[in-house]
């Protein structure tokens, strides 16, 4: 176990090193920091002096180590646009993104488990086929398009009247086809509750929850089909196994077999794959936040790109890289803990 732990942590450190090298290369390659700092009127000699003073004439290796040492102490430079330390800017925007991810994860959890289990137990039922069909279509719809359709349906509203409005049945059908709209599709709303530090939460007010609905449903829509398929596939595999057959032969009730014996072993791979997917969701938050103008780190990153705010871009890469590395390492360790049969040190069989 200790060897496994050491191996995984050193691997994580190696990945972080590579990320920091890439981030440093971007910072070094894009733009001249001097140009951003001083105006046109500064003479060549003065420029050279500042250059020497800032250490820009040192070798790349020395500059990298200075960058890495600062980064390790939480100093990732100052944002050009916000005029404050980039890490503070990111910490201000991070809670919004986290709440979006939490909301989407809750939706995924609530829907994927029952649907996946049902589709595995009754693979031939029309409802299962319907859900599997929907999930195939769902995978083909990009997350920003889902978001736009949701905005059209539930924020703007759709009013269609293909049926005669004067007849009772016509009005009812028209009503069924039309949607009200009215859900907020912009930002997080004004009623945020301060929790601690920079965390202002939208979970504790009616308005905040309303603002959260459309973005988190959109974000969940891209992962939900994946999870349904995963749970179904794993569950079907478990249901084929000998111990399930034995439990059935012993005369245990279907509910007990399915939910106590089978589901427990299904959830194991689902949790580990799920952990990695939650990390991947960070990439999709960029798209979701753009559509809904959600003031999280994704939107901040995109704005940093359009403003050429290089320190902020670099800091975002480092922070997101760290989040990815930590989730992946935790998931790996967790998997090693709950499933002792996994080859711990990765020796070739």
């Amino acid at each position, binding site marked *: 176990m200790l060897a496994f732990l050491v191996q995984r942590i050193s691997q994580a450190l190696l*990945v972080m090193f*590579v990320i920091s090298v890439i981030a440093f290369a*971007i910072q070094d*390659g*894009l*733009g001249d920091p001097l140009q951003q700092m001083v105006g046109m009127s500064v003479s060549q000699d003065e420029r050279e002096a500042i250059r020497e003073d800032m250490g820009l004439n040192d070798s790349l290796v020395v500059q990298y180590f200075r960058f890495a040492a600062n980064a390790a102490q939480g100093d990732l430079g100052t944002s050009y646009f916000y005029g404050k330390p980039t890490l503070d800017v990111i910490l201000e925007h991070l809670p919004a993104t986290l709440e979006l991810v939490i909301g989407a994860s809750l939706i995924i959890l609530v829907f994927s488990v029952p649907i996946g289990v049902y589709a595995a137990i009754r693979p031939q039922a029309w409802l299962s086929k319907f859900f599997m069909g929907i999930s*195939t*279509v769902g*995978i*083909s*719809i*990009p*997350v*920003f*398009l889902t978001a*736009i*359709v949701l*905005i*059209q349906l539930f924020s*703007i509203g759709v009013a269609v009247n293909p049926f005669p409005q004067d007849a009772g049945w016509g009005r009812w059908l028209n009503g069924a086809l039309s949607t009200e709209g009215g859900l907020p599709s912009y930002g997080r709303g004004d009623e945020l509750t301060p929790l601690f530090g920079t965390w202002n939460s939208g979970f504790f007010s009616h308005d905040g929850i309303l603002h959260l609905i459309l973005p988190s449903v959109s974000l969940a829509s891209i992962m939900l089909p994946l999870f349904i398929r*995963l749970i179904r596939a794993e569950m079907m595999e478990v249901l084929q196994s000998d111990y399930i057959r034995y439990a059935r032969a012993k005369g245990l009730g279907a509910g007990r077999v399915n939910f106590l014996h089978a589901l427990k072993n299904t959830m194991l791979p689902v949790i580990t*794959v799920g952990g*990695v997917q939650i*990390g*991947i969701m*960070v*990439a*999709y938050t*960029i*798209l979701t936040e*753009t*559509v809904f103008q959600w003031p999280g780190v994704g939107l901040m*990153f*995109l704005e940093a*790109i*359009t403003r*050429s705010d*290089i320190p902020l*871009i670099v800091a975002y*890469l480092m922070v*997101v*890289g760290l989040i*990815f590395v930590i989730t*992946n390492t935790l998931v790996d360790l967790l998997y090693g803990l709950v499933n002792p049969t996994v080859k711990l040190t990765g020796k070739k069989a």
Partner: protein
Amino acid sequence: MTTATISRWDRFRESFLWYSFKRDKIAIISFIVLLAMVLAAIFAPLLAPADPYDLAQINIMNSELPPAGMAGSDPAFPLGTDAQGRDMLSTILYGTRVSLLIGFGAVVLQAALGIVFGLLAGYLGGRVDSILMRIADVQLSFSTLMVAIIVGAVFKASFGNLMFGEIAIYMLIFIIGIAEWPQIARTVRASVLAEKKKEYVDAAKVMGFRTGRIMFRHILPNTLSPIFVIATVQIANAIISEAALSFLGLGMPETQPSLGSLIKSGFDYIQSGSWWITLLPGLVLVVLVLVINLLGDWLRDVMNPRLYKG
């Protein structure tokens, strides 16, 4: 290829592939729809009523006209017009062309990278294998979209807006190809690992062939069917990635729109009620990706290759 008397067409007609294709309604419908869309995209300059790249043909007075059948529509614009007064039907045809071009191009690039790296990793093993697969793991754990966004952002920042817009097609092919090669490399590696234990590889080694020849001439042809299957699905993924990048403003410029940038430019007008500018290209995008995915599913079931699970 010993029987020269039977033509390739006859061989194809007797193959299991054709047999199962004839019996799968979903595959047939998907194939027909895809073929129609590809043909429409290829012949867009002939089919489209207007040339969306030609500024002289655009009249701003025609902007935001609804599709036929709605109040205020113009019969000259069957699918309505966008905010600049461009004919939606034409922009969608040209947009599909750009999206498909980038999708195919990106898959060709990632297949080239994936095949070379996958063969090297699988056949040589050892340190080459662990280094290449570690890179692939890290890239995949970041998700291909994230890698594409970061590479796109860096390119855009270093080339500048104008320059990036001019070479956007090549840039996007490069970005998506770089971001998604690990998928193919893993598949190739998995089948190379199974192939290299077989006797014909030993025979080739005994005959003294060079490693490169064994890898590309002997093993590669036997790993083609899983590559084919995953490449199909990857085209759909590349089209989605391109649309996502364009939607974020890191892709095709509005003057030379892909489906993604059409959706983006239409999104600004959805609040004013002009849903067709964004939702019609969106629908085309979804149908395109869906039929490719369905064909990919069918191919996987028929060829049943050893795909990397998950």
